[in-house]
């Protein structure tokens, strides 16, 4: 009997414990549900609307900036008699694409989302903003952007937001980015006896040479130029920038259709003898020279490793986007100066026809945010999107908290952020790089550059040219896929045309609504010729690349 009583007592305690656990988990769930729905104010206040704002930007300051912005928004809306709670969701970038798709397909997406993915995803799931971008942003009242339309308030007039496949605006950009060089002043001073920063490539290479010598003399593993090797970002940046400095003037005459040009134009000019191919290979020779100051094994060093090496005090210069500027300056235990990529001048053997730095106005826009079609709170979502891209709030979140450049016009920068401002005092824009046709073939081009840096051939230009020609089948195959993609887009565009045409013919529409459909239809059809031009350019590129010869003309 006693034994049975003991057993009963043990079972009873176990069951009680289980019951307590169940109650605890239930209470935790209730708390989480209440929290996820905006807090007790929302649960007990049915007229409070909750909107969710989701992104993958987990960098220092971003979320904090938006928490402050959200508080201001909620207060401002309360003053307007609108009860709203905004929930911010930060999702790690690795899982963001998957999470986003699940949200969009599952039918309960956040109300304002950071966009990633293809044009088809944007077209299918996101609201087109073109009906709204011509209106003024009401949140800009009392600011220098008060009289600008929402579109015009952006530094690039929303050019970067335009989807090239659907000729539509599915998002707005929150920030701008420039590329800069972060210099370890202490190390440079020790190596050169001076803290004068290089302005030209010649000066830069000389400092790099002294850094290397200093490393050998002191038995320190000094790396003159730290790079993001693993994702090839640094090589891509250097190749683009120095191609622009050397060949930016090609935009003045290479294309039959206007300013700029496409890769097909350059190769056609080489084939018909009007362009010396050596011009296109000079940037390769320059990169090969600069690359001698990268670390051993640089192709496998990623961003975090390079930043670690930099913070350890052994890297002289690190090239990266301005989004890392504050982190680099603030977290380094030594003085860091932010400088522009050095300018190629006539002092360098390759700089005889160099044009100088290119202007960065209107480039480097990022942080696309849009509204999914399935949002249950469209008006509030649009209002919030306008709010976070308004003059005061965008500076609060981007400049003050994140220390990033704003995507808006008329923003004044102070302190170290002035060093990040876009270059505007030159007359040349970035040049079209004929070797960059996107995709895997461009990755092969960057791998070729890596190989040239490592193997140090006597003629880097010729080695590059031959490697590029060896990869013609890969490039042609990709271009063919691009052509097919454009044809698919033309089909989808006709779907848009049809939808807008039928939508606009509804007799119950107001004049304003009808005009909106007309305008959206106009945007779609204005994109048709552009698609045909892309098609023709890609076909021409395939033809011209096939005709290129290995030997010099």
């Amino acid at each position, binding site marked *: 009997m006693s034994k049975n009583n003991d057993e009963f007592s043990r079972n009873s305690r176990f069951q009680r414990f289980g019951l307590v656990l169940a109650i605890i988990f239930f209470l935790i769930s209730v708390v989480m549900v209440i929290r996820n729905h905006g807090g007790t104010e929302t649960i007990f206040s049915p007229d409070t609307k909750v909107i969710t704002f989701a992104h993958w930007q987990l960098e220092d300051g971003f979320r904090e900036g938006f928490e402050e912005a959200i508080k201001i928004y909620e207060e401002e809306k309360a003053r307007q008699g609108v009860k709203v709670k905004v929930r911010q969701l930060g999702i790690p970038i690795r899982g963001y694409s998957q999470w986003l798709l699940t949200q969009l397909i599952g039918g309960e997406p956040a109300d304002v989302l950071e966009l990633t993915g293809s044009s088809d995803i944007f077209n299918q799931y996101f609201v087109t903003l073109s009906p709204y971008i011509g209106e003024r942003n009401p949140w800009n009242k009392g600011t220098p952007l008060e009289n600008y339309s929402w579109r015009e308030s952006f530094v690039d007039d929303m050019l970067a937001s335009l989807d090239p496949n659907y000729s539509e605006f599915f998002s707005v950009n929150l920030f701008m980015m420039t590329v800069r060089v972060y210099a370890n002043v202490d190390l440079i001073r020790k190596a050169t006896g001076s803290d004068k920063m290089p302005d030209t490539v010649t000066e830069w290479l000389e400092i790099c040479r002294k850094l290397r010598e200093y490393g050998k003399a002191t038995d320190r593993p000094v790396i003159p130029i730290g790079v993001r090797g693993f994702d090839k970002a640094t090589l891509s940046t250097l190749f683009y920038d120095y191609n622009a400095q050397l060949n930016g003037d090609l935009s003045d005459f290479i294309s*039959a259709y206007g300013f700029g040009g496409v890769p097909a134009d350059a190769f056609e000019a080489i084939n018909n003898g009007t362009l010396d191919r050596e011009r296109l290979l000079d940037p390769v020779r320059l990169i090969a020279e600069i690359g001698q100051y990268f670390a051993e094994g640089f192709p496998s060093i990623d961003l975090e490793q390079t930043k670690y090496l930099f913070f350890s005090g052994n890297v002289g210069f690190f090239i990266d986007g301005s989004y890392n500027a504050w982190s680099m300056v603030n977290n380094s235990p030594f003085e860091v100066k932010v400088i522009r990529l050095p300018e190629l001048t006539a002092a360098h053997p390759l700089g005889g026809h160099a044009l100088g730095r290119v202007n960065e106005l209107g480039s480097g826009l990022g942080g696309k945010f849009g509204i999914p079609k399935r949002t249950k709170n469209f008006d509030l979502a649009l209002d919030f999107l306008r709010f976070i891209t308004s003059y005061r709030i965008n500076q609060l979140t981007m400049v003050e908290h994140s220390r990033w450049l704003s995507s808006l016009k008329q923003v004044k920068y102070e302190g170290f952020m002035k060093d990040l401002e876009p270059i505007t005092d030159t007359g040349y824009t970035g040049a079209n790089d004929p070797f960059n046709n996107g995709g895997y073939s461009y990755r092969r081009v960057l791998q070729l550059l890596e190989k040239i840096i490592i193997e140090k051939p006597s003629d880097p230009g010729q080695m590059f040219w031959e490697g590029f020609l060896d990869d013609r089948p890969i490039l042609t195959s990709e271009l063919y896929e691009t052509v097919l993609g454009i044809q698919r887009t033309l089909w989808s565009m006709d779907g848009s045309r049809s939808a807008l045409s039928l939508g606009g013919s*509804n007799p119950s529409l107001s004049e304003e609504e009808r005009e909106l459909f007309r305008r959206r239809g106009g945007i779609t*059809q204005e994109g*048709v010729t552009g698609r045909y031009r892309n098609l023709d350019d890609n076909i021409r590129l395939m033809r011209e690349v096939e005709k290129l010869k290995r030997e010099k003309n």
Partner: protein
Amino acid sequence: MFQMFRIPVLLTFVCGAFAAVGSDEAVDAIMKAYSDMNYPQARKLAAKLPEHPEARLVTALCDLYDRTSPQIERAQQELALLFREESLSVRLRSEAGLSLARTAQLMKERRDIYGNAADIYDHLALFREVEELVPDSAMARDAFLYRIREELEREESRDAAFDELERFIVEFKGDARLLTPLRQMAEYEYIRLRSDYANAVRHLEAACAEGFDNPSEARSASFRLAFLCDRKLKDRERGIRYYRKFISEYPFAALSIVAKRFLKELGEESVEVGDVEEQ
């Protein structure tokens, strides 16, 4: 006797009225779902009114354009029937005809995928019929845009196609803004096929005057106009005028800095916002 049937007759009329209103609302809902490109919803709603012309049209269009579940052959057959049904409204018929013609045209450009499936449709003839059915409309413009591109591609029809393009634009009585996409095509093709910058610039100038719906196209066209006048036509006066206009309209654009450089090369002083005279 009439008194006996008065209430049932009255009830019948009332029910009929409600049905009509309900049907109108249902059709509005179908059209709205389709114009939002919400194909699953549009299909679902259209399935409730399978014999209604709008529902039939939308179902066929969803079958054509919904890439998650295309039924192209079935769609095109239905669109061909709708296009020929003279009892239907001109609006529905022209939409059916235009979508049929366009997709047949695109299929013929991808014979590797579609083989000869679209050969039963004479898409060029269909385009012409749509142009005649709804002249001076956006649909006529689109039918012509798609057709003329193909005619210009063929050497044997090219000269006639250029003439027809000019005639269409001159004779078009609809909203002049509808001509912008055609003028873009004209500009491009005059350069591509004839290196004829005079005619290309003429159309570009007109398009800039009529206006673009896409602000990015507007900006790009504005700069291109200045550039082509300056660099291709060697028309210094117009080049300067249009560079200045561009700088005035887009002072913060990267190309405004390039425009200032070009003005300097033409021996002109740089401009600030507000300096440019109105056209």
